């Protein structure tokens, strides 16, 4: 016998638990919303502007956050955050500060050699200036020189600077991209299935994004471009799951003339359960590998993805199908009906195949048992 996680004939009443699962989802979503005023939504520099500098001190240097902070302060940057980063035995630090934190004064306490001063002077960008649109790039250079002079040799591994204008553009574009993706999905599902299937899929997607984002807020994790990319990938992933179940529902509806929708939904979810578990498993394995081995820079992406895979799998089973049921009962007026079935079968590209109808009695028997 083949090895199986989900033995054949498994019949779990997923749909029957819809009240509990809906309550759980709403509770988690609410927790996310409540956490917003308490924890605040933490935005990375991508979305609110700011500077991030990752530095690695040389082997023998004994660097401490406090010392780094005082050098930064002397260079005229207030309210910078300094944290140890990475695995390089505490010699790697991440320094972050907001654009507004840079004092307009020269920051006289910044210890630079005359050559360094000259180099910075030569590279001064003509005209314009910092302020509300961007910076001239000197702040980071001065800081790097001063840290090198006062603490020890270092390498600037990474510099990310996002001006306020770019930050707000990325923010609004990011939200727009999520909305556009949802709309496209709505249209595609309405076109490939029936219009009745579409809201369930989109509600499931909004649910996934909402809960993943909510968990980020609850745990005080930061939103940045990487997380946004993960959210969009989650959209694709969760939709994948939902469509596979929907396809089964449509197929099962087309197989019979009269059916109980709850039964069809349950049957479809159960039939695809093995696949759902397996694919979530393999994707999770890949994402966990990324989380644990992929390095600091990509970790936020992996964390968001991991949460999204769990939530997306859950929503395809417990949210998308019950929504379909809810809408059918609400708007089609009955739990059993020929109308959705007719619509579904007319949309099918190919008529039900002979072999498919041949197994129909068997399936029905299985369902009754």
């Amino acid at each position: 016998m083949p090895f199986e996680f989900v033995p054949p004939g498994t019949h779990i009443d997923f749909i029957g638990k819809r009240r509990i699962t809906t309550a759980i989802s709403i509770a988690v979503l609410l927790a996310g919303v409540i956490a917003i005023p308490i924890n605040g939504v933490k935005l990375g520099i991508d979305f609110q502007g700011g500077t991030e500098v990752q530095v690695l001190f040389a082997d023998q240097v004994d660097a401490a956050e406090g010392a780094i902070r005082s050098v930064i302060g002397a260079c005229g940057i207030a309210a910078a955050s300094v944290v140890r980063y990475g695995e390089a035995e505490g010699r790697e630090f991440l320094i972050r500060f907001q654009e507004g934190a840079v004092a307009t004064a020269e920051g006289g306490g910044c210890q630079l050699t005359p050559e360094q001063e000259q180099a910075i002077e030569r590279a001064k960008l003509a005209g314009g200036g910092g302020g509300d649109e961007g910076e001239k790039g000197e702040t980071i250079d001065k800081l790097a020189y001063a840290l090198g002079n006062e603490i020890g040799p270092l390498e600037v591994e990474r510099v990310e600077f996002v001006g306020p204008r770019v930050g707000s553009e990325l923010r609004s574009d990011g939200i727009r991209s999520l909305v556009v993706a949802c709309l496209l999905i709505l249209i595609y599902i309405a076109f490939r299935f029936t219009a009745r299937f579409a809201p369930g899929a989109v509600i499931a997607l909004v649910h996934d994004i909402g809960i993943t984002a909510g968990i980020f807020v609850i745990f005080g994790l930061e939103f940045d471009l990487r997380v946004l990319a993960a959210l969009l990938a989650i959209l694709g992933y969760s939709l994948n799951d939902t469509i596979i179940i929907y396809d089964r529902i449509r197929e099962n509806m087309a197989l019979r003339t009269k059916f109980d929708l709850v039964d069809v939904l349950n049957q479809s979810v159960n039939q695809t359960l093995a696949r759902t578990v397996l694919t979530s498993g393999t994707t999770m394995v890949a994402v966990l590998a990324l989380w644990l081995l992929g390095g600091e820079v990509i970790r936020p992406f992996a964390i968001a993805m991991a949460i999204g895979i769990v939530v997306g799998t859950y929503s395809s089973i417990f949210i998308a199908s019950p929504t379909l049921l809810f809408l059918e009962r609400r708007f089609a007026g009955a739990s059993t009906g020929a109308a959705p079935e007719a619509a579904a079968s007319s949309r099918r590209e190919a008529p039900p195949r002979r072999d498919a109808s041949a197994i129909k009695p068997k399936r029905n028997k299985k369902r009754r048992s």
Partner: protein
Amino acid sequence: MSLRWRAIWVVATVVLFGYYALANFASEEARIDSPLLPDNDLRLGLDLRGGIHWVIGVKLGATEEHELSFLKGLLEDELERENVVVGKIDIVDQKLRVETFTNEARAAVRDWIGDSDQIVEVGSDPELVTLELSDLRREQVREQGMSQVLEVLRRRIDDPMKGIPDSVVTQQGDDRVLVQIPGGSVDRTRAREMLRVTGFLEFKIVLDTAPTEELLRDKYPDGVLPEDTTIAFERDKETDRVLAAYLVRKEADLTGDYLTDARPGFDNQQRPQVDFSFNPAGGELFQALTEANIEERLAIILDDRVYSAPTIRSRIATRGTISGRFTVDEASDLSVILRAGSLSVPVVIEEERTVGPALGADSIRQGVTAMVVGLAAIVLFMTFYYRLSGLYACVALVVNLLLLVGVMSMFEATLTLPGLAGMVLTVGMAVDANVLIFERIREELRAHKTPRAAISTGFNKAFLTIMDANITTLGTAIVLYNYGTGPIKGFAVTLSIGVVTSVFAALVVTRLLFSTYPGDRHVESLSI
């Protein structure tokens, strides 16, 4: 299609892309030397190979104000000539405001505007005539500002001969320039020097000229140039070939510091020319220089490169023209060069993403480790769970990776760190199509189908589902591509190509493997 042809077709595809994918592992020298290896390869994003990514904001408002101040000068001249008295003329918020206390003054200003298509009157304060650039003119001025900034940055950074290899300077939107300097070998402070938009403009009297350096040197005994002189070259813009060599003094006769403006214009016969103006100090120097060198040629040199060497026809003071057999485009190019050496269009760094080469190398190592570990875990699991069929899925998975890297190499797509993450994700998700098919086959087998019938039904039934599921993923990837900047775009690229290759691998490659076993044989059970 017969099985044989299908097999040939699939193997050919895999070999072709596999060849492109594996060629990436060959060293650069080997690729150049060997005629067998392809020239196309996978490009690494700046976040993996290290480098500076800058989005430069160009403050075009400043160029508008400069244009207004030019017009202000013309207006002042005009009013002086007409003996009209007005109050203060100033420029506020890209508007030219003229205080007019009398109706005559107002009339004179309006008269001067006339039916100009460059300037329009806005506002209705009786004591104040407020003027603004017309939409058409504003558009032109902004475009000029952009082309000036691009001209200077391109020449310094992505010039094929003198710039930094593989660097890129492109316009982004209306008022931004994207600068990408790869390698991480260029120090940030030094790189920023290159962003100073003002070029170094010099005017030098041409002492002697020849088509090439050799011919010029031949004119002097032993090829030794006279003291304090040097050779400046005029080169073809595209090919960098030397067009002419000029003998000039080492010291500039005049620098661009004195230049206040340059713009294309027309002479009284409507031939294109370039009009320029100096500030008063520069005017005096220029007058002396031109007076002493009438009928000599004056080389206009920007950043050590001769752009033009017109002959001086008459004494020129603050305002002069450069005429020659210009086309309109050439006149406009030359004025861009001159302005590039005089006006500074203010720029700011609006976005920066700089990664050192060490961190980039770390990222590659970590990303590849994650991929190998993920791949190994999935291969073990799939073979355990689906046995021989699982092994087929693993072959498809490896083929999928080969195709993905091969397609990206062939099209020279850029692999970024998020792109690498996308690849790892693809490894995890790609088996989905095979899982769908295998689960279907198992279902069919449970329904007492023969193995062959089960395989064919399984593939057929899973086909539409797989298509639906992947088209939507492709859709979100495309949205991401349109939205994303830099590295994130790389994620969208690998994700979308990965979707296509994984569908091919699952549907075509696995199917082919099932055709070899069990194929036409009558087997009692499938290894699934």
